[in-house]
């Protein structure tokens, strides 16, 4: 692909999606009737994922960052995140294609917002500078605020969007303040320069102010923790998830979370991966450790008492964020003054598995309801699995995968995070034990879905949910079922992708690459990976 497009090849995924987004705006403006925007955006997003996969083996030259003024990178971490997010977004827009039509909400701007938000997410995972990070984070967030408020006449939707917007702005302000402090400490906004300044203690313009740097780091962590909905920054999550139309909820649950986790990995491993800042007991890993522990406990326990399935899934997504943070804390192991990043692959795999399982669960929830009879509570699910086994089967699969049950994707995802935690040893082992105990707690509320699907019947006189019919939703369910089972039975290929992505983050030699080409340090694909010599 490099031969065709030169250095622009690295930007192809972004360009393809941006072009499609503009085309969709035009289509939406001029073709009023029967615009199959759901299908169109799904195809475009899947195509973007393909382009990203195509770039996987491209040797990205040092010219690429220069082309963008050092603001964006194009490494395998970003490409991997592209695949996960585009897959999630494509499936979400397929779900929307069925859902919005069924509920008479079919307006084109939904897909346009979804595509532009995904573009923001893709830029976010590529960001190698505080400025590009903030701009793309806002590009992602603004679109999602609108998506939450999409059902304009529903007070719940407005409430969720308002909460999300206000708290989101607040978090953005905190993030921005942290960035300002970091700039003050290091006199750099690009990650490579910041990392260098933090490691050597020299900014090139006087000594680095480490106290300011630590404060800035803490504020950045808070800002990002808000976006991954880690406790105690999770308050917006249940309301926003409940208020949003379900495809938008799916999008939030998978794409926003994936993008933020990846950017968290990039910033904290790339910039703050110095010996002092990433020390096991006093550095950011211990903060992530604490966040993970409290997120796991609160997310799982709060999900137990929910009566609304969407709220339950919202709390379950908080619990999953806790699991992801366990993975990040486990991966942050210092080795001769540098962070090793092999175990980041477990986090990345989790993101992928979580994406497909969540789409499956939300998609099944969508398909259970129909116009005027949307399924929201457990009671609405009563007996659906028996009356309509082809709705019950994907729902079961999705729930089992979220529960982490073999042989589904969720099992291996959970398994590798646990393996990383146990391998890290020390206090991480206790976190792993907490994580499995909380998984056991979690199995209760997931099983409750199965209980209602298969073992209960609707109350006398209660409204009976009627499954909707939509080719789009069925297609999304079939695809995500395939991925859930594929990653559960033969996860090797996906794990290798994740490993490739995590090796390149650290500038480590990629084991899958040809041994004949040792990559010189100055050709290291990312600025983040600032070679230590």
């Amino acid at each position, binding site marked *: 692909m490099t031969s065709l497009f030169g250095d622009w090849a690295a930007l192809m995924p972004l360009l393809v999606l941006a072009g499609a987004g503009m085309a969709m705006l035009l289509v939406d403006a001029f073709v009023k009737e029967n615009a199959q925007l759901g299908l169109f955006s799904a195809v475009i997003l899947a195509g973007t994922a393909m382009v990203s996969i195509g770039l996987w083996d491209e040797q990205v030259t040092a010219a690429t960052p220069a082309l963008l003024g050092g603001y964006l990178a194009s490494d395998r971490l970003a490409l991997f995140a592209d695949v996960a997010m585009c897959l999630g977004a494509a499936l979400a827009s397929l779900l929307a294609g069925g859902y919005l039509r069924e509920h008479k909400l079919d307006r084109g701007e939904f897909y346009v917002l979804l595509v532009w938000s995904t573009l923001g997410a893709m830029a976010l995972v590529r960001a190698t500078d505080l400025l590009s990070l903030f701009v793309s984070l806002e590009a992602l967030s603004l679109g999602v605020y609108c998506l939450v408020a999409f059902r304009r006449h529903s007070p719940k939707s407005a409430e969720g969007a308002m909460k999300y917007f206000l708290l989101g702005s607040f978090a953005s302000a905190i993030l921005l303040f942290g960035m300002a402090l970091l700039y003050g400490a290091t006199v750099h906004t690009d990650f490579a320069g910041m990392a260098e300044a933090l490691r050597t203690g020299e900014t090139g313009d006087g000594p680095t102010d480490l106290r300011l740097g630590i404060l800035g780091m803490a504020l950045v962590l808070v800002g990002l923790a808000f976006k991954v909905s880690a406790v105690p920054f999770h308050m917006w999550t249940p309301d926003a998830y409940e208020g949003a139309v379900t495809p938008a909820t799916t999008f939030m649950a998978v794409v926003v979370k994936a993008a933020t986790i990846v950017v968290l990995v990039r910033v904290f491993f790339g910039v703050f991966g110095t010996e002092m800042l990433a020390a096991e007991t006093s550095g950011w890993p211990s903060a992530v450790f604490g966040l993970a522990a409290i997120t796991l406990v609160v997310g799982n326990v709060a999900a137990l008492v929910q009566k609304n399935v969407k709220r339950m899934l919202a709390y379950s997504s908080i619990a999953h964020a806790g699991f992801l943070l366990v993975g990040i804390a486990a991966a942050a192991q210092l080795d001769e003054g540098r962070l090793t990043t092999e175990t980041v692959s477990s986090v990345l795999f989790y993101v992928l598995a979580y994406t497909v399982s969540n789409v499956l669960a939300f998609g099944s929830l969508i398909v259970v309801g129909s116009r005027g009879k949307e399924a929201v509570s457990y009671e609405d699910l009563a007996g659906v699995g028996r009356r309509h086994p082809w709705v019950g089967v994907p729902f079961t699969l999705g729930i089992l995968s979220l529960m982490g049950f073999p042989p589904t994707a969720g099992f291996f995802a959970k398994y590798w995070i646990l393996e990383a935690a146990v391998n890290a040893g020390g206090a991480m082992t206790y976190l792993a034990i907490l994580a499995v105990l909380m998984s*056991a707690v979690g199995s209760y509320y997931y099983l409750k879905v199965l209980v209602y699907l298969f073992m209960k019947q609707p109350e006398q006189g209660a409204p009976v949910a009627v499954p909707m019919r939509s080719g789009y939703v069925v297609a999304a369910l079939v695809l995500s079922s395939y991925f859930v089972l594929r990653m559960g039975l033969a996860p090797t290929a996906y794990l290798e992708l994740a490993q490739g992505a995590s090796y390149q983050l650290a500038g480590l030699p990629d084991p899958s690459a040809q041994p004949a080409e040792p990559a010189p340090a100055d050709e290291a694909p990312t600025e983040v990976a600032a070679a230590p010599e």
Partner: protein
Amino acid sequence: MSNTHDTSHDTHAPSVAVSPSEARFEIVLAILVAVIFLELPVHAPAAPANLLTLLLEVPLMGALAVLFIPRQWTAIIRRFSLAVMVIELWLSAWLFHGDYSGAGYQFSQDVEWIPSLGIRYAVGVDGISYWLVLLTTVLTPISLYVSYNSVSTKIKEYAFSFLLLEVGMIGAFVSLDLFLFYVFWELMLVPMYLIIGVWGGKDRIYAALKFFIYTMVGSLLMLVAILYVVAQYHSLSGEYSFALADLLRLQLTQSEQIWLFAAFALAFAIKVPMFPLHTWLPDAHVQAPTGGSVILAAVLLKLGGYGFIRFAMPLFPYASHYLGPTLAVFAVVGIIYGAACAWVQRDVKKLVAYSSVSHLGFVMLGIFSITRGGIEGAVLQMIAHGVSTGALFILVGVIYDRRHTRDLADFGGLAKAMPIYTTIFVIVTMSSVGLPGTNGFIGEFMILSGAFVSEELSVWERVFALFAATGVILAAVYMLHAVLKMFWGPLDKKANVGLADLNHREAIALSPLVFLIFWMGVFPSSMLDTMRPSVAHFIAQYDAGWRESYSADALRLRPAPGEEPADAEGEDEGDAEGGAEARAERPAADHALAMVGGAR
């Protein structure tokens, strides 16, 4: 949560009426199945090398095929699922062809599954697991067959669950890779959960959830322990492996062993179930449909004991040596507590469920005695318990189908109304009580004699045996009490007059079990001979293992058998000799007793 709807399972018609010609057909077919099963090992060609994979594939493919049969064709679904299980039974007859004269694994297969993590598809059977696989393949078709008398709704899902359950059970018994074992272990959970939760009694959802969450807590902690062991193996050898053979080379420090053993023991003790973790069992049994109870009692519970023998104790010998006597105390408490609880039950099914707690306490006592007699007796008792408790649950199901009550007070004088039923019930009761000549006797006697001479149980071994022996007496008390209440005395309840005796289906389901009760009771050596080398190997390995940890508390990796031929062999021999010497030191009288217990 209301269960007001869908009480169809509680109100099915008593024993589906079958035309005489169909009954004759099924009887002839059953005899044919039995004859072929018994004749196959003699005449069949050499067993295929991938026999165990075949045993896993057949029910799995059957389960998938059932999904594609239209749900209205209930007769076809019934026959098809049974046919799959019968084919599975025939295939399992090939297991007799294995060479069980050594402790090695037979029909073993070892293929990479996820190479980058050292996860392999490694399966094999030895003299212990092979009997458990056979128990599974015999009991599963019987329990499905007998279910068709009473389960009349959602036959398709029922057959699917049973076939999937069979895959999980056989897989767990043959896995030689801890990861694979964990996958199958978890795989069993969902079908059983559905069987209890969908086709169960009034409080089925509570029982199913309790069953699921109890098991889940234990197994998740076991997963962390497995990962820890693998991490330690990785740190010493530089490679990942979940293979049991590799991990057995690892010698962990004493404190590590104790924590890891505790995690494994929790998972297995919940499954057994050992006192005080048994509380899910009565609920699950009472609520489960007959077929589910049979398979739960007969096979699923055995995985607990099997897990101790195959994984927990060989991997952490020091910890099991250290904690074994404590667990044996819980086993003995379980024996007496289970028996006492059974005594006061009015619900027959609950009575049988508590009797399981008591009987499985014997199994655990036998395992922790670490004597040949004790362990062989424990394995034999597992099989015997599977057969006789399976039969008891079928019998309880029979009377429940007719009377829709299980309360002892509602019966009385049934011997006059149902003579054949009474005969079989009394035979099975005798086996459960442990009458000589039935299978229950051999296992319990061997366990008690093993415990009596056990060195492992330190100075209290006779006390253990004494208290455990009271369990045998109590078993006679509660079982005979139930028989008395149900069958003897005047036939004074109107509803009990004119009850139909066993129909052909129930008779077909019970007759192989009755045959096994006597066969195992009279010819136990046919089973004991094949498990002896495996048990001897287990004890030798265990003794050497804990002594090694005891004398040098260190984290190290023993050399692989093929790695440094000269050196490693020498060391292995040394270990074996050490173990042999240790046993030779036992007093001669005790040894003789052990032989008596062990041999006949």
